[in-house]
């Protein structure tokens, strides 16, 4: 009953894509308009928190190696922390705007987790490529929410952050258990399937 790895990536891609669209819409209309409905302000932080919660079963079920478990659990914790921090800020229970730094920290840890738990080189197989591209996207993309933490009204930082998340969603949708990437597939990766 355990889902194949590629299906897990696609399910997370769906959550990440929704998160990205909400962030992009907020970047376009601005926070003031976005927060006119209280429930809407809670929407994307809740999705981020939920993605963190759903990362725990991934940590428990996909135990390929210790580093996999550590990467997935640190990732789950950081997503939950960033989501909770944003929920706290939106609800007014957290006053200090420095809590916004949880977002870039989450992206940096997520990027590092992607890179650390991928033991194979870029062109070993599609999945290795996807992990490398997601890792670097998130690591470099962490600069956008970092900038937005200090310039919250900046369209460049907010839209840039959202577009990084769109990129991660697209990359996750391209993930396959065993498939070539740009014609490269290591013989030790196994036989390619659909």
């Amino acid at each position: 009953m355990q889902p194949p790895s590629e299906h897990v990536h696609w399910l997370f891609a769906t959550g990440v894509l929704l998160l990205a669209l909400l962030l992009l819409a907020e970047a376009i209309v601005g926070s003031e308009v976005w927060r006119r409905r209280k429930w809407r302000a809670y929407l994307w932080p809740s999705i981020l928190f939920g993605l963190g919660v759903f990362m725990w079963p991934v940590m428990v079920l996909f135990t390929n190696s210790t580093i996999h478990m550590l990467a997935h659990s640190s990732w789950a914790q950081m997503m939950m922390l960033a989501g909770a921090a944003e929920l706290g800020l939106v609800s007014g229970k957290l006053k200090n705007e420095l809590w916004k730094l949880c977002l870039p920290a989450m992206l940096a840890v997520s990027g590092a987790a992607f890179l650390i738990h991928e033991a194979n080189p870029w062109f070993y197989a599609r999945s290795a490529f996807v992990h490398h591209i997601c890792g670097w996207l998130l690591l470099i993309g962490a600069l956008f929410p970092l900038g937005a933490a200090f310039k919250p009204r900046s369209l460049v930082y907010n839209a840039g952050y959202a577009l990084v998340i769109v990129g991660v969603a697209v990359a996750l949708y391209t993930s396959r258990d065993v498939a070539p990437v740009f014609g490269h597939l290591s013989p030790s990766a196994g036989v390619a399937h659909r």
Partner: protein
Amino acid sequence: MNHLATSELQEVRTRRSARALAVLALGPLTMLAGVVWAFVQPWRVTLLHPHGEGFWWLVVEPPLLVVAVGIFFSVLAYGIVRDLEESEG
């Protein structure tokens, strides 16, 4: 002077309506991406040929998930644009 003020106001209104259009376009563009994907890789939509497919292949069909995200966001987009236009007066 009045002409200048009017043209500036029109420019602001044009920019604001562009923002509304951008938000309204996000959902349909996402749905379109899912539909194009379904045509390019029809074997990913296992509902079209469900025989012999396992549980996860039937439940998780990525092009349909992309379309579903687009539909969900489109429902939200109308409320967002309504609030945007109210704030613009």
